[in-house]
């Protein structure tokens, strides 16, 4: 179980590294959003799954904790893409220009 937790958490960290690199390196708002929206949600979910694996061996009440973390995952899965959508819409309406190759 611990090995599985380690694998999941490190996978999540790799995804998160990709997210941050994407945030820093992508040229315009929309592609940054792309990196943040996908990578962030996925990495958080994977890390939280790893946390469930990590705690599932301790104590007899750990299934409640696991259930709560599953709830967190559920809410992140709903909330984070919604926020991404709202921000993307806002950026579109506010007039952020998409990046073109010959622009800069």
């Amino acid at each position, binding site marked *: 179980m611990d090995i599985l937790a380690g694998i999941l958490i490190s996978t999540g960290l790799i995804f998160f590294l990709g997210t941050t690199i994407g945030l820093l390196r992508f040229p315009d708002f929309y592609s940054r959003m792309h990196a943040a929206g996908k990578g962030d949600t996925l990495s958080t979910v994977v890390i939280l799954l790893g946390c469930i694996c990590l705690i599932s061996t301790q104590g007899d009440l750990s299934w409640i904790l696991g259930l709560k973390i599953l709830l967190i995952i559920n*809410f992140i899965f*709903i*909330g984070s893409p919604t926020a991404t*959508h*709202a921000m993307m819409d806002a950026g579109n309406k506010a007039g952020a220009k998409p990046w073109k190759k010959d622009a800069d």
Partner: protein
Amino acid sequence: MPSLPIWQFDVPLLILVVLFAVVALSIRNLMGTAIVFGAYSFMMCLIWAGMGAVDVAFTEAAVGAGVSTVFIVSTIYNTSATMPPRPGGLPFKLFIGVVVTLTGVFLLSAIPDFPKWGEPNSPANATVAPYYISNTIADAHVPNIVTTVLADYRGFDTLLETTVVFIACIAIYSILRVDEARSKTEDSGPVDAEPHYDPSDSLIVRQASRFMVPFMQLFALYVIAHGHYSPGGGFQGGVILGASLILVAISFDLKFLLAQWREKQIMLMVAWGVFLYAVVGLGCVFMGGNYLDYGFLNPVLPGEQDMARSHGILLVEIGVGITVMFSMIGIHINLASNGHFDRGL
């Protein structure tokens, strides 16, 4: 065994907090300031958690993620986000800088007199706190010491703090509310040209909020009721309840919220919370005890004297929760609609 101030966890966060504060204040666009201030509050929440103050962390999480940034954003929404660049003023800034630096040097010179970080026998930890820690179970059967101290041992303190929140809500009403708001007519136009409301946008946001809001309210009730055994209590639950209704106001429309809760009802509920708190205290006096001494309520409440204290704490927390919830909503509807109660953020 991990020690409580986790140095590796706290020290980088403390440095980050200072960085965020500087960045937040040095951005020229006020929207940016508000958003970076939100991140600042996230960091603060992590610091409280790292120092073992889970209840404070919970409050900061609810307030920072749900409420305070929304207040700032709605204020900016009704005014303007730009800061025109001003030339000059350098001597003034230098003067202020000297003053602030002098203050800082004076404060820094006092540091060696303080006890070390994490000293168990410092004066703050040695006087009255050990009594609270060792007697909370015997007195009130509440494992969460913070709840006991909040509502029982220092009940007066919390009563007055709740009153302060109440007064702040009233103050905002009297400052911002305009007289035409009562008639609710459309032609009492906004003061500066506000953008028109577009009902066709953000269907996804509306549906997601429709899904999330019941869970938030359920969770908030859990937080209030379970505050005896885990972090939580009236303040946190009230803020989360208020934030859920603020989310309704944001994702649907302000009118949608006001159709369900009239402003008169909101003000009444704010007063009812404080009233409930005070009445519980008065009930103790009628039962022959001191003000806010819940142990004397045991003829009314189930259980022996210690369990009666526990239930009295629960009643008081509900009062706090009602006040905090409705004052958050009251503050939001005033700030978001610039006192007109017709449309807003």
